[in-house]
């Protein structure tokens, strides 16, 4: 069987000037900006259109939503640290240190898991039990849509990082540069997930 490999996984493509995985990842991220952008735009429209305080349909203050900025702030820090560990994983691999890179990837994975566990156990479950369901108000339907979609992205990131910790790691022996590039692409996605949260946190927890 002939070994067929993808072209331009390490060397820059003559047309785009970068390796193809990176270009593909940026294209994907551009579509992600549109996805989250549409939801943010909906938020702006609904927030601006909400009637003022005495009306029962007014926008709830954060005292009324009972969303804890401490939990949200903690998760913000978790995601920021996970972004640092992700980029350190890439930097370690780039300098040829596989075991260090792997340790940083594990840290990133565990931080992502922390985010999800905190989100579910301290926020979603108590909120849903307390009657703060999506149908409660416009705010809560937006809250669950935005944080739910973001949470799915975090889980998606965990799947990818988990793959590169598990079966995907074999690539390092075959072609370390290719593996390092794939981790860079994973990182691009992961930082985007962090970037979305940077906007979600103040909008949902502090306003």
């Amino acid at each position, binding site marked *: 069987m002939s070994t067929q490999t993808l072209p331009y996984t390490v060397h820059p493509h003559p047309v785009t000037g970068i390796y193809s995985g990176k270009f593909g990842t940026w294209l994907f991220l551009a579509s992600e*900006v549109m996805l989250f952008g549409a939801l*943010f735009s909906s938020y702006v429209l609904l927030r601006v259109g909400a009637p003022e305080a005495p009306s029962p349909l007014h926008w709830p203050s954060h005292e009324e939503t009972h969303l804890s900025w401490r939990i949200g702030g903690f998760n913000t820090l978790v995601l*920021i640290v996970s972004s640092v560990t992700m980029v350190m994983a890439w930097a370690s691999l780039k300098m040829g240190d596989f075991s260090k890179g792997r340790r940083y990837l594990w840290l990133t994975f565990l931080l992502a898991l922390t985010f999800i566990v905190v989100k579910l156990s301290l926020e979603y479950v108590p909120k849903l039990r307390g009657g703060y369901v999506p149908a409660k108000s416009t705010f809560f339907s937006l809250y669950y849509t935005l944080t739910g979609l973001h949470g799915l992205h975090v889980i998606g990131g965990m799947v990818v990082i988990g793959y590169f910790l598990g079966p995907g790691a074999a690539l390092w022996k075959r072609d370390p540069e290719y593996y390092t590039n794939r981790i860079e692409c994973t990182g691009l996605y992961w930082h*985007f997930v*962090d970037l979305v949260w940077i906007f979600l946190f*103040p909008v949902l927890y502090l306003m």
Partner: protein
Amino acid sequence: MSGSHADVSKHVRAYVAVFIALAIGTIVTVAAAQVHIPHPMNYVVAMLIALFKASLVAAIFMHLKWERAANIWILLALCAVFFAALMLLPSLTTFDLPKQAQRIGAWG
């Protein structure tokens, strides 16, 4: 981007600096929310801090500071235009106001 050891270790210092800036940014965001800036200025302040933090993530963690490939910048510029269009969509609804008023009037 270039990928020699010296370059990458220079990057590592930038990563640590950005981490500190992001942590401070988060504290400032929370602090700004506690001083009760009147609406809608509170949104402006929060979004400015978030934009600053997001730019740091994009420039350093996502390596855009060192990105020389023109195609990525064309892609990002297009993305920015469409994103701006999305964000301006809500303001288009103001053109619909007379109609909305009519409707509300008709419903009493």
